[in-house]
């Protein structure tokens, strides 16, 4: 069945601007460029075929990301879902800030860390954490859209984000100490 040309045009106009986001998120899910490329292409073709089910004027990016996520889970993920690591749960929420508070209270060290190291730290997070960090803190998605996309209550998104940020900040802090961007505090 031939898609009418105007639907091709409207799909391209609405979906293509989100390719960068789709690719970044695909890379976090899939882990390497080759698989990310396939995942984005599969996502776009599926989205194109389903374009008539998209309600114009709603959030096209969230719609596309949901297709990408479902495609990844159903067709790309090899292993069964890993349990979320909760190793840092015992850590006081103030710990990282307290650790740097004296030497770098404004968190300038974050900007000194090179991009590749930040991506590596994000990619090292457990999947449940990595997903919410990327959608919320990198891509700027609203918490409510993330909750709908991931299929969990809003409160779960918030608590995952809280723990994920703590874990990511901890990893970035350790890297910054290692690189000498900040001095380690004796009392952590």
């Amino acid at each position, binding site marked *: 069945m*031939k*898609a009418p*040309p105007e639907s*091709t045009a409207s*799909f*391209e106009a609405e979906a*293509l601007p989100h*390719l*960068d*986001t*789709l*690719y*970044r998120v695909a*890379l976090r899910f899939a882990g390497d*460029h080759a698989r990310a*490329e396939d995942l*984005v*292409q599969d996502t*776009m*073709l599926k989205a*194109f*075929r389903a374009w008539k089910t998209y309600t114009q004027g709603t959030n096209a990016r969230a719609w596309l990301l949901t297709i990408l996520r479902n495609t990844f889970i159903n067709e790309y993920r090899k292993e069964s879902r890993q349990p979320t690591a909760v190793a840092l749960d015992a850590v006081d*929420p*103030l710990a990282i*800030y307290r650790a*740097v*508070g004296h030497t770098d*209270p*404004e*968190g*300038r060290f*974050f*900007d000194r*860390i090179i*991009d590749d190291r*930040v*991506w590596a730290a*994000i990619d090292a997070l457990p999947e449940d954490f990595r997903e919410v*960090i990327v959608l*919320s*803190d*990198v*891509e*700027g998605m*609203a*918490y409510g859209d993330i909750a709908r996309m991931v299929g969990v209550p809003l409160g779960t998104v*918030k608590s995952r*984000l*809280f723990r994920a*940020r703590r874990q990511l*900040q901890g990893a970035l802090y350790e890297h910054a100490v290692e690189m000498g961007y900040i001095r380690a505090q004796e009392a952590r």
Partner: protein
Amino acid sequence: MSSDMDCNEAVEALHEFLRQECTPELAQQIKQHLEDCRPCLGHAQFEKSYLAMLESMAGTQGCPDSVRSQILDALRKAAEPPPSGD
């Protein structure tokens, strides 16, 4: 000291506040707390730096041009009518 929010509550809601994800009432409470509490104001600045850095990461990676044109080709092909035997 008119804020009835304690530091732990303020810290827990800090990201929601910075991401403008909390209710106006909660935002007002946090704002008040930050005005009254220097350590929490400092913490807010720290979290702001974290959020700004992560937000800026989006600009460091994107869909390669080769992948983009590959996808465009695939889409155009998908939009074509299937070859019929007429």
